[in-house]
């Protein structure tokens, strides 16, 4: 018994030891070779400042080919001041080469730490602003990087989980649970290594503000919250030390600036913030540091998304593996790890569509109270946030009456679903028709009313605009970079892993054959509704986000189509394909490759820029 327990712990201990070894001997290899006398070198005296013709400051540091692991600058600045650093370092052949680095003296921090990890000869700093440099030193000490170590540990742990899954036979029955575990682990790493900034994802400041306000009758706008809501308060946090200092700084900014009264009522279009709000406020109620509260909000969002998607994978009778890959799309996991409500839309719609598909592929599926309750909760959860997907609820009408207890029940239920769908659609149709809906002014000279008038007075013209734009962008919106590998303002995942993700998505779409199939008639109806929804999304953005009279449609983003990916793939017919790959190999690949893609992207887009 005791030996069994020890046997279970041994792999974790091995992974921990490997993590320490990798951190020490690989990431600190150069530093280990440094003589103890060169571990910390104070170069403040070598840092000479002069004024240039434009009133800015040029500072130079002359160092005689010393290895610089980290350059630590202690400073005081009342404003954010951008600095341009030109420096001379060694290339791979130990010849000198010119390089450049841009950074910022942040008014809220006191230390700038730059990771050079190379031999340097000379540096020239150019900046405009009043900055007092207190100390400059070269730090060649061994610093165990907590972010990097957690990443390495979890990377290997993910591999171990997949290995155990493979060894146990990789049964499709366990796919939902393994997906849930992997999603939480990988998403957890992503959340942990990010600086506390509400600006990495689209409209994140707005989503964070709304999550912060949720459920409260008295909203105390603390200074740290206001700091996160300002655009770019902490850009250029690019080292472990700066990240940790930022977290400590936020903790000191808990004074309340303003108090706002609220009813505490949750409007229908804010239900997507429920998980975010619960996470943040639960942590706040426990008295945890602000940085932890901020991250816990994100983690709850990830938990909500992962739980609902794993239920969808568990319940679906078609395309389990396809759904697992879609649930592990890098964009989806990234958004689930931010203050964003797109994951709620994706998860809710997916679960609702899974229930629909189950009823249509399997005539034995009885439509009972529980079925309709879950279907309604899932669809309304998504459609309350983005009512544009509401027409998909009408696919419920395809379910044969024979699957209900009585014909009368079937009719009443279907009429009820239609009325509910119309009520949801009224939230965006009525404001548009009564000219009370405002356009999004970020699109430029926009006006919903004028654009609608133009479309109605010249429908053929609009159809041509729609046709041209869709032909140009259709594939890109579904499997382009934006749909699969764009991490909002952080950039794109690299080409190699993007292609790997596209390949695995195409592979599983074609080869995940199943015994139950959707009949041709149902496929056609699904396609009609899906295409209708796609057209609605394009039209909505034309009305709200495109300047009046434009010949293209602006503002459509690929993440709007992620919830439609699964039903679209199911509508395709690959019955002719024979898949003789064993479940053991197939399921492991299906979960392993997306996991690997996301883990590599975390290293490229988070660890290297923010956590080194």
């Amino acid at each position, binding site marked *: 018994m005791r030996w069994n327990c020890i046997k279970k712990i041994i792999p974790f201990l091995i992974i921990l030891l490997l993590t320490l070894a990798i951190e020490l001997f690989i990431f600190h290899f150069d530093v280990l070779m440094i003589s103890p006398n060169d571990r910390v070198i104070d170069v403040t005296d070598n840092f000479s400042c002069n004024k240039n013709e434009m009133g800015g400051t040029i500072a130079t540091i002359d160092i005689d080919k010393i290895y610089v692991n980290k350059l630590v600058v202690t400073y005081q600045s009342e*404003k954010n001041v951008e600095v341009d650093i030109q420096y001379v370092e060694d290339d791979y052949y130990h010849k000198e080469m010119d390089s450049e680095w841009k950074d910022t003296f942040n008014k809220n921090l006191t230390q700038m730490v730059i990771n050079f990890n190379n031999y340097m000869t000379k540096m020239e700093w150019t900046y405009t602003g009043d900055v007092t440099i207190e100390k400059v030193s070269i730090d060649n000490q061994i610093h165990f990087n907590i972010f990097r170590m957690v990443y390495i540990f979890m990377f290997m742990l993910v591999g171990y989980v997949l290995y155990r899954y493979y060894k146990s036979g990789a049964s499709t029955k366990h796919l939902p649970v393994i997906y849930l575990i992997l999603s939480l682990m990988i998403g957890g790493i992503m959340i942990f290594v990010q600086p506390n900034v509400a600006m990495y994802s689209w409209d994140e*400041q*707005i989503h964070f*503000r709304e999550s912060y306000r949720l459920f409260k009758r008295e*909203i105390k*706008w603390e200074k740290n919250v206001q700091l996160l*809501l*300002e*655009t*770019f308060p902490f850009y250029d946090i690019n080292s472990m030390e700066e990240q940790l200092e930022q977290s400590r700084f936020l903790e000191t900014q808990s004074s309340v600036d*303003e*108090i*706002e*009264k*609220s*009813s505490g*009522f949750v*409007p*229908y279009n804010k239900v997507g913030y429920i998980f975010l709000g619960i996470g943040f406020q639960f942590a706040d109620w426990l008295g945890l540091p602000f940085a932890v509260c901020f991250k816990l909000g994100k983690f709850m969002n990830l938990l909500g998304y992962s739980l609902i998607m794993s239920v969808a994978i568990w319940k679906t009778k078609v395309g389990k593996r396809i759904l697992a890959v879609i649930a592990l799309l890098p964009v989806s996991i990234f958004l689930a790890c931010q203050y964003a409500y797109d994951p709620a839309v994706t998860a809710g719609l997916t679960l609702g569509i899974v229930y629909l598909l189950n009823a249509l592929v399997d005539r034995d599926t009885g*439509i*009972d*109270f529980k079925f*309709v*309750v879950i279907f*309604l909760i899932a669809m309304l959860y998504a459609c309350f946030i983005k009512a544009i997907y509401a027409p998909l609820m009408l696919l419920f009408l395809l379910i044969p009456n024979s699957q*209900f*207890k*009585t014909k*009368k*029940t079937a009719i*009443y*239920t279907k*009429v*009820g*679903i239609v*009325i*509910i769908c119309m*009520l949801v659609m*009224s*939230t965006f149709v009525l404001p548009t028709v009564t000219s*009370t809906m*405002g356009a999004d*002014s*970020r699109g*430029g*000279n*926009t*006006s919903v009313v*004028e654009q609608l008038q133009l479309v109605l007075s010249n429908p053929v013209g609009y159809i041509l605009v729609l046709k041209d734009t869709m032909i140009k962008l259709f594939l890109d919106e579904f499997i382009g970079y934006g749909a699969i590998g764009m991490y909002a303002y952080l950039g794109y995942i690299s080409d190699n892993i993007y292609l790997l993700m596209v390949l695995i998505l195409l592979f599983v779409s074609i080869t995940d054959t199943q015994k139950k199939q959707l009949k041709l008639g149902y496929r056609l109806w699904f396609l009609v509704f899906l295409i209708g929804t796609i057209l609605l999304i394009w039209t909505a953005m034309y009305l709200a986000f495109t*300047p*009046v*009279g434009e010949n293209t449609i602006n503002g459509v983003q690929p993440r709007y189509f992620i919830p439609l990916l699964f039903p679209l793939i199911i509508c395709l017919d690959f019955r002719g394909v024979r898949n003789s790959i064993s479940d053991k190999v197939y399921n492991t690949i299906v979960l392993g490759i997306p996991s690997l893609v996301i883990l590599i992207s975390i290293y490229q887009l988070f660890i290297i820029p923010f956590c080194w």
Partner: protein
Amino acid sequence: MGQIVKKKYKIFICYGIILLAFLAFIVLLIKKPQAIVYHNVYAEDTSFSQEEVTFPLKEVVTVDIDNIQSLSLTIGDNTINNYSYQVSITDLDGNVYFVQDYDKYSSSSYYFPLNELKDLKENMLILEIDCADCKGIKANLGKATDKAYISGIEKTLQISINNFKTNKQYYWYVFMLLAVGFTLLPLARSEEI
């Protein structure tokens, strides 16, 4: 007996939802509705295509509701975000309720909780945007009948006075609850023993 109770709970849930909707409806009927004032600045002007904007930019807003809880201000164009500017809210007597300086690249959408407005003597406020460095910004002041590009802020300056009682949403929730309750009721009844 246990099975009867188990089956009947679904009916109880449906009737509970419908009852909740009716109760909420009655409460809404009894409660005095509070208006939301929406004021779209300059949107109705049609006389100009492009005009240079002079700062400070002022707009007087008439507030015709009992309880003001907050004010939200959206500055429509991102051009102004390239400059440092100041936003202030005062009444006609010059009492200052809000003043804030914004660095460039600040957000163009603001939410101001106005805790002191209950002391307002007159129901009129002045919203002012001052931008000392914003020389030569042109603005489209009218409805865009041509394709003049908006480079200023006035066309899309939207000021909405928000009240936390958004009554329209409450009524919508009532209808939604009724619809859900009546949709589920036949299913619950069909499973009744």
